């Protein structure tokens, strides 16, 4: 059994290394591309071709993210901060909320000592969006492609989502399968890096920050339309994401509303 466990550990490690090698070739946050580039990916696929056509009626651009299990949080973080670049009021509201979130997390017994580092880096990125002039966009892009900043933003967003789930544990318990408590779920599925996101992560983050997210689901389901889900339900979307099984990218509307 001992050698088996060792063997298993080696296999897991190897598996993870291969995954990393593949994903490392893709930028954490890519350049804005024309949405029509998606067509080339599914040339012989009539189902997806139809859906891409539908998507192209509504959206202009796509920005790809690295498929490393953090894509939802990273895509959201980048897209929302980018959205805030020219929206002073919304930016101020968010900055204040982000600033205060630290005390909220400490009140939920997150360890202050390790939390502070993540909060500081998160605020550094948020502040970079508020300050400075023309270069803010390229600065945001640079920070999100620098692992030290980008991953810390992901960690902090995960903590915010976790805190929200814990605060409303009684409600969210209904959505958690198996015999896990909300806290177990947060420790195992929300806080650790590289763990993929599900509906519950999206509901938690969008509710915690009070920021609407529209996810467009592109899968093999019937119909030619790419179905939209808004989180939290009924909120005006500020961030649009494209979901293809297992992965989120950022979408840009044709005629963006504010």
């Amino acid at each position, binding site marked *: 059994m001992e050698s088996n466990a060792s063997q298993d550990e080696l296999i897991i490690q190897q598996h993870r290394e291969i995954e990393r090698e593949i994903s490392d070739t893709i930028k954490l946050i890519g350049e804005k591309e024309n949405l029509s580039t998606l067509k080339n990916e599914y040339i012989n696929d009539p189902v997806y071709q139809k859906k891409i056509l539908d998507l192209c009626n509504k959206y202009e651009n796509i920005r790809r993210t690295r498929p490393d299990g953090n894509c939802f949080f990273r895509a959201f973080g980048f897209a929302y901060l980018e959205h805030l670049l020219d929206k002073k009021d919304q930016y101020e509201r968010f900055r204040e909320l982000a600033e205060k979130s630290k005390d909220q997390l400490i009140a939920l017994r997150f360890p202050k000592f390790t939390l502070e580092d993540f909060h500081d880096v998160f605020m550094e990125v948020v502040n970079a969006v508020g300050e400075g002039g023309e270069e803010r966009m390229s600065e945001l892009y640079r920070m999100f492609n620098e692992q030290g900043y980008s991953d810390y933003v992901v960690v902090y967003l995960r903590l915010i989502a976790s805190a929200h789930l814990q605060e409303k544990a009684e409600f969210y318990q209904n959505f958690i399968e198996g015999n896990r408590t909300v806290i177990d779920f947060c420790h195992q599925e929300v806080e650790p890096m590289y*763990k993929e996101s599900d509906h519950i992560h999206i509901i938690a983050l969008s509710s915690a920050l009070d920021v609407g997210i529209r996810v467009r689901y592109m899968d093999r389901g019937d119909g030619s339309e790419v179905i939209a889900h808004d989180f939290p339900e009924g909120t005006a979307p500020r961030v649009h994401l494209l979901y293809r099984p297992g992965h989120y990218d950022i979408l840009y509307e044709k005629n963006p509303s504010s």
Partner: protein
Amino acid sequence: MAGSALRRLMAEYKQLTINPPEGIIAGPVNEENFFEWEALITGPEGTCFEGGIFPTKLVFPPDYPLSPPKMQFMCEMFHPNIYADGRVCISILHAPGDDPMGYESSAERWSPVQSVEKILLSVVSMLAEPNDESGANVDAAKMWRENREEFNKIAERIVRKTLGIPAVTQV
């Protein structure tokens, strides 16, 4: 990326120096390389490992604290959750999903807000209360369950060895 890991490790080292947990001394082997630490752990009171001083080594990955360090005992050890080569096998040293031992779902896992201190305290509890369900050392797990007296004898011999005291000769 290694920049943020270094910053964090330096902060943790400082914290552990100013405010060390009881019975634990930890820090980089040499200050040129913060990614390799040595920790001395005192066997918890009232257990068969009481009085022992156990040298261990922690190796941190470049993306620490996103991923956990690895930990190994550098002395002879006989314990259900420690492999024969000294590697420690407890849930907090694994990210969820990366657990060959299949820990209980409520067991504490690694996440970026955990710390070296939390790991070391978990190791102290592990010494006090082995988890014989996840047998990294099957013989030790079996003996812990079935022949505690014999297990305690081996532990006592190991404790003496860590202190450089010769084993008691049986009368």
